[in-house]
Structure formats: structure tokens, C-alpha cells
């Protein structure tokens, strides 16, 4: 009798726990990916969709808390940077398993790092660590300790591990065995990606319940933003991670409570002139574009407040410089937004020999000032900004042609043929650390957009930027690095290689049925804390 009672009690507890966990466990989170992921290998991630998969499935050693922007432990319980900034040691969590049950150890971290830094792989994440030539060494003194040594100091090294999802060195499933909260359960090209809860996920909440709360995440592939907004309004998807301002305002009329404006994001929209010496454009135009006064005048002639108000419906702020104010530590607070001052613009142009003849501005040789701005078609915000800039500069007597091109044609012009005059594009910034922009600021780099791959800096200010960027890359003290980069920002604002236009706000939408969501500025804005999100039934 007693045995039966105990058995009945145990069964009751078992069932009650199951029911309780069932009642408390989440349903399926649904949102859209805007394109097919190009890869499921976290080391090769280079596009947004693949990055989303990596964030949701990858286990990392440390994580930049998207809300506080501070580093927090994940698979590593502790870490220590060497004084010379060349190596980092991690203490790893024990009793952790991959999604297929394979045990996790320092060997897996070593395996991941070796593959990441393999020159044949050409991983964008790996290239972020590449500060000098030479081999990367990994020392594994015990199964839960590892030291990674680089040939040269790597600025902000610890934070870079936020992007390194650890691969299993032993699992037959290779990169599909993961340490993150979810794993890829199903994928149909052009249709959807289905993630399911990782049954072996190491993280638990304060009550000891295993995370994540959600059972699954279904991401349908849909590039049309109208349809995305429509489906969000109808409740068919749970969130829109990055909402355009136009849809934000349209949805606000019916679903205001579901929308979130987290303020200026890290992203910026900017314009630049082609300063490449052998570009196939007329020599007199090259002279204009290389003149700092000309670039400053153009910058003064653009009404950024109008861009923010008309194009982005005030869901943007006039940009100040290369760093958004959302980047709390690195933003140079001494810098002020560029004012709209056509009179000063004309004075600057006159200084360079330009003169106004009726409604046309001419240079000192009598050429009418006319140039084209290329931007990518299909992005209506950029098309509108370019049209507004066309009118603003028209008031200075400058004739601007707006040319929208498909993306591959545009990329070819700005990276290979240099057959363009001015371009307007955006900078998507996922990384807080300016070291990530090394290849933008170094004059010898490929992404030094206005004049890439210089054999030696063609101007003094570019030489100065080169020196400062290298100095901040080899410095360890964050404050010292900041002082160097503050000066880079000041030079960028003085010399105007990029005419920074706006910093867009981070807009998102989250269904009321999703619990635990706190939209923020850093990507991914809505599901940065995905393991804590819940959709109770």
C-alpha cells in the first residue's frame, strides 16, 4: 500500500512537472528573414540572414550584452588579456554539450580558432583578428582552459569573440552541432528556416529551468517589406527586427503599442566623392572632388534636418561624423552636427574660384558644375535623399544627376572600374569598436571608399589618419585608444572624405504575445536576448 502511494506520488510529481513545464514553455516565434542564408557555417558568415542564424544557434565564449554594451561571460567563465595585447586566456564552463550530445571542451575552441584563422577560409570574422602576419597559436593546458596567441596585438580582442561561434571538433554533424539556444532543424531554400530548441543548452534561469523558453523559431524568407509589415499587423509574425520609418508610421495608426523607437542606431547614411587618381572621369571634376573646400561646401549645402524630417519622418538624426552617438564610449562628444548654411557654402566655393552665373555655378575654367550621384535602386530612402540633395545643391547652382543602379553594377563601379563621380550609400555597423573600420580608414585598404588601395597616403590628413588608426590598434589602454580615435573623427569632419548625412533610428515591432522582449539599438534589436523570450500559450 505504502509502495503504491509513493509510486502514485512520484507519478503525480512527474506529470505535474511535465504539465508545468509544458504550460510555461514557449510556443514558436515567427519572423522573416529578408533573404536566404548563404551559409550555415558560422565561420563564413557574411550576410544578414546567415548572421541571424549564427546568433541564434552559435555558442560563444563571451557575449557583448546588447543592452549594456558590456562584455559578459558565456561559455567562458573568465578571461584574461595579456599585457602586450597579443594573447587571451579563457577558463571554460564544464559539463557543457553540443546539441547532438558531443561534449564541449577547450579542444573545440582550438579547432574553431585554427579554422577561423586559416588563410584559405577567408572568414570575415577571422579577418577581424588579423592584425599582423604570422601564425595563431592555441595552447590547451587542460580540457577547460585555453590560451590563444596572435602574432600582433589585436585591439578589442575580447569583444571580437562575441562573433566566434564554437564548432565541434568531434561531432559528425560538423557545423550543424551547436552550443547556442537553438539548432537548425529544417531549411527549405526560398521558403523558411526552422530552428528548434537545443535540448543540451547549458544556460538556466534563476529557478533552474533550462533555457530557452521558446520551443522553436520559424523564419520565413520574404524580401518584400510591405508584406512583412502587413503580416506583422495581422499578427502572423511576431516581430520585425528592423522596421523602416515609413512602415513604422503606417503601423502606428493601428498598432502603436507594438512599435519601438530605440533612438539613433549605429548605422549611418553618407555620400562621398570619387577621389581616385586614375578614375575615368574628367580631370577638372577630379580637381573639384579633391578640394576640401568643395566637399565642405557640398556638406554645408545639404539640409540634413529636412532629410530626417521628410525622408525618415523624424526617425533619424543629422549625422555628426563617423560614429553614431549610440556608440556611447567611442562617440566624440566634442563634435557638432553640420549646419545647413548655403551662404557659407557659396563663400567656400568662391574661395576655390567657383562663381555663380545666373542659375549655374561654374568653376574657374568656366565648366558648369555638374555631377552624378549613384545609389542602389530599390532603396526608396536613398532615392529620396538623393532627390532632395539634388534640389538643395540646385539652389547653389550645381546640377546633380540622380542615377539609381542595381547593386552589382554599383559595386563594380565603386570598387573596380571607379567609373562614378559621387555615391550615396549606408554604413551598417555591428561593431562598437572602431578597429572594425580599419579597412575604411587606412589609405592602403580596399574599403577606403573615396580612394582605395593607395600605395602611400596621397594627402597629409590621410597619412595622419593612418598613423592614428595604427596607434589605436596597438594600444591596450581603452582611454588612450579613444583619444586616438577621437582625433580620427575630428579629421574626418574637417576634411569631409565622407559627407555624413543621417543616423537612422533603430525601429522595431514586437507582438504583445512575446514576453521578455526589450528592443534596443544594437543588432539584433528585438531578439538579442532570445533565450529569455517567451510566448506562453
Amino acid at each position: 500500500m505504502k509502495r503504491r502511494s509513493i509510486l502514485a506520488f512520484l507519478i503525480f510529481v512527474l506529470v505535474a512537472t511535465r504539465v508545468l513545464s509544458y504550460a510555461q514553455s514557449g510556443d514558436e516565434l515567427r519572423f522573416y528573414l529578408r533573404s536566404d542564408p548563404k551559409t550555415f557555417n558560422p565561420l563564413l558568415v557574411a550576410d544578414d540572414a546567415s548572421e541571424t542564424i549564427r546568433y541564434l544557434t552559435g555558442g560563444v565564449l563571451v557575449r557583448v550584452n546588447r543592452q549594456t554594451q558590456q562584455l559578459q561571460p558565456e561559455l567562458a567563465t573568465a578571461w584574461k588579456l595579456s599585457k602586450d595585447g597579443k594573447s587571451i586566456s579563457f577558463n571554460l564552463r564544464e559539463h557543457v554539450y553540443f546539441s547532438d550530445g558531443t561534449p564541449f571542451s577547450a579542444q573545440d575552441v582550438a579547432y574553431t580558432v585554427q579554422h577561423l584563422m586559416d588563410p584559405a577560409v577567408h572568414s570575415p570574422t577571422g579577418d577581424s583578428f588579423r592584425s599582423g602576419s604570422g601564425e595563431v597559436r592555441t595552447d590547451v593546458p587542460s580540457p577547460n582552459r585555453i590560451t590563444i596567441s596572435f602574432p600582433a596585438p589585436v585591439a578589442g580582442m575580447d569583444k571580437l569573440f562575441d562573433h566566434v561561434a564554437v564548432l565541434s571538433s568531434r561531432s559528425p554533424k560538423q557545423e550543424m552541432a551547436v552550443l547556442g539556444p537553438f539548432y537548425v532543424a529544417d531549411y527549405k531554400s526560398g521558403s523558411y528556416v526552422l530552428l528548434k530548441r537545443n535540448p543540451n543548452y547549458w544556460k538556466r534561469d534563476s529557478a533552474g529551468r533550462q533555457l530557452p523558453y521558446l520551443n522553436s523559431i520559424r523564419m520565413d524568407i520574404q524580401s518584400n517589406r510591405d508584406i512583412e509589415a502587413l503580416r506583422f499587423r495581422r499578427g502572423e509574425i511576431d516581430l520585425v527586427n528592423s522596421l523602416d520609418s515609413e512602415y513604422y508610421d503606417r503601423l502606428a495608426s493601428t498598432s502603436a503599442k507594438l512599435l519601438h523607437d530605440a533612438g539613433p542606431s549605429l548605422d549611418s547614411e553618407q555620400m562621398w566623392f570619387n577621389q581616385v587618381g586614375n578614375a575615368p572621369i574628367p580631370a577638372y571634376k577630379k580637381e573639384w572632388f579633391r578640394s576640401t573646400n568643395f566637399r565642405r561646401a557640398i556638406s554645408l549645402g545639404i539640409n540634413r534636418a529636412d532629410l530626417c524630417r521628410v525622408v525618415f519622418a523624424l526617425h533619424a538624426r543629422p549625422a555628426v561624423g563617423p560614429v553614431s552617438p549610440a556608440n556611447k564610449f567611442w562617440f566624440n562628444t566634442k563634435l557638432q552636427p553640420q549646419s545647413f548654411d548655403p551662404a557659407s557654402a557659396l563663400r567656400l566655393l568662391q574661395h576655390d574660384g567657383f562663381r555663380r552665373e545666373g542659375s549655374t555655378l561654374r568653376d574657374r575654367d568656366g565648366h558648369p558644375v555638374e555631377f552624378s550621384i549613384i545609389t542602389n535602386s530599390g532603396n526608396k530612402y536613398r532615392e529620396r535623399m538623393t532627390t532632395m540633395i539634388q534640389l538643395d545643391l540646385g539652389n547653389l547652382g550645381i546640377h546633380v544627376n540622380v542615377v539609381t543602379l542595381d547593386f552589382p553594377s554599383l559595386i563594380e563601379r565603386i570598387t573596380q572600374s571607379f567609373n562614378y563621380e559621387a555615391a550615396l550609400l549606408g554604413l551598417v555597423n555591428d561593431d562598437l569598436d572602431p578597429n572594425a573600420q580599419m579597412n575604411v580608414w587606412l589609405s592602403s585598404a580596399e574599403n577606403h571608399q573615396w580612394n582605395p588601395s593607395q600605395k602611400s597616403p596621397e594627402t597629409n590628413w590621410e597619412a595622419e589618419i593612418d598613423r592614428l588608426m595604427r596607434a589605436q590598434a596597438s594600444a591596450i589602454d581603452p582611454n588612450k585608444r579613444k583619444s586616438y580615435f577621437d582625433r580620427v573623427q575630428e579629421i574626418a569632419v574637417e576634411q569631409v572624405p565622407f559627407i555624413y548625412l543621417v543616423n537612422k533610428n533603430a525601429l522595431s515591432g514586437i507582438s504583445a504575445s512575446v514576453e521578455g522582449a526589450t528592443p534596443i539599438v544594437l543588432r539584433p534589436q528585438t531578439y538579442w536576448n532570445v533565450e529569455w523570450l517567451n510566448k506562453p500559450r
Partner: protein
Amino acid sequence: MRIMRIFGHLETILATLLIGGFLSATLARLAPGFSADEQELDFRLSAESIRQIRESHAQQRNILHFYFNYLKRAIHGDLGTSRSLGQPVRQLIADRLPITVRLCGLGLLVGWTVGLALAIAVVMAQVRVLDVFAAGLAGTFLSLPAAVLALLFVYFNAPASLAISLIVFPKLFSFSRNLLAQSYGLPHIITARAKGLGSARIFGWHVLPVAGPQMLALAGVSVSMALGAAIPVEALCGIPGIGQLAWQAALGRDLSLLVTVTVLVTVVTLAANTGSDLAMDMFRGQQA
């Protein structure tokens, strides 16, 4: 004789396919942006990585070499790997073809039904108001951008095949209406009407046989119209069919995928038009 004609058609189809595949590869190769890759704008990448990305496109620069290798592999069933989606082209086509076939098939069925029914009604009823109404209806759908149509269908949760039928039916209606009206105005038809012959009999026995061959030609061409309509509808509605694949291949300059999709579209177009030619021959043979 008929079998000889069929073989003749097959020869033409094969030659057209080979030329079509080569021309599409050439067009893509010569178009700007062929060797450009979005990854080049990723400022995390080192110069060496960017150089490697550019060199990976070098294999496809020589178009003759590419096409020859493509054909050699295709004979063994290997259609290459899609650069933009990272998957075997054969698998992509196999997954998506049934979706587009269903979409276009239904779209054509409804489009023909509505277009032909409206054209017949207009021609036989001989009522100006109906003619103007039908013309207005066709004009409305001709003037509606595909993006708006696709969005409306998503908004009302209607099947996307209906969007294709609404894109295709105005064209079918315009051609059918004019062909049937021309036949209906022939002297012997007017005589038959004057003599009191029933409308249905006139239409079935005297109008349709005259307009039939051109209508059959139109039927063949309507398959191309439906495929053409499938591209924006699938791309906009996020339907994972061949149309969406074609659009992605074009924008991504994905040569293997593009050549395969072009060859597939050419096969379908040729098959449809050849089918209508053969049907015409049979139709005229029966008439004789």
C-alpha cells in the same frame, strides 16, 4: 510525314536550346557587375580575402570555356552549384519547378477561361456597353503594377496563381476578342446570321475554325506570358518558384543558375509553341 515534322521540330528545339544557353551566359557575362560581389563592401575583410573573392569569379570570365564545361557536366546531370544560394542547381530546380508549374498552370487556366469567356461574350452579344466594360476591365488590370497586384493578393490571402491569371487575362482577352471579332465579321458569317443560324452553331462551326489557328498560336505564346508574370509575382510574394530563382540569379549574376533557368524557360517556351504548331497542323489536317 508528321513524324518527320516532329523530328524537324526537335532538331530546331535542340539548336535553339544550345544557342539560348550560350546567349544568356554571354549576356550575363557582358553585363556590368558580373565580377562584383557584395562581400567586397564588407570592411572586415582583408585585402587578401577580397582578392580571393575576385579571383573566384575569374573561372567564369571566359564564357566559351564556362559554357563548354557546363554542357559537359550537364550531360552527366550536374548543373553546377549556385553561387548566390550555395546549393546544387539541380536540387534548386527540382524543388522549385513544381511550384511554378502549379502556379502558372492554374494561372493560365483561369486566365484563358476568363479572357476567352469575356471575348466570346463580347463578340457574340454584340453589345457596345459590354465591349466597353470588358475593355475597361482589361485595361484596368493591364495598368495595375505587378507589385500592387501581388500585394493585394497577400492582403486578401488570395492564391498567387490568380495574380498570374489577372496579369495574363487582359492580353489574352485583347488578342482573342480581336481575332474572334474579325472572324465574326466575315461575309459568310454575316450571311449565316442573316439566314437565322443559331449563335452557338455559328460560333462553333464557322467562327472558331477560322480563328482557331491563331488562337492556338496565342495559346503557345501565353505560356511565355505566364512565365514572365511568374517572375514578379513569385519575387514579390516570396513564393519559392523558378520565377523567384530567375530574379535572384539575374541580380546575383549567378551564371550556372542563370543558364540553367534560361534553358528551362526556353524548353518550356519551345515545347509550348511547338505543341501549338503541331496542334495547328492537326487542326488544319482535320479541316481539310
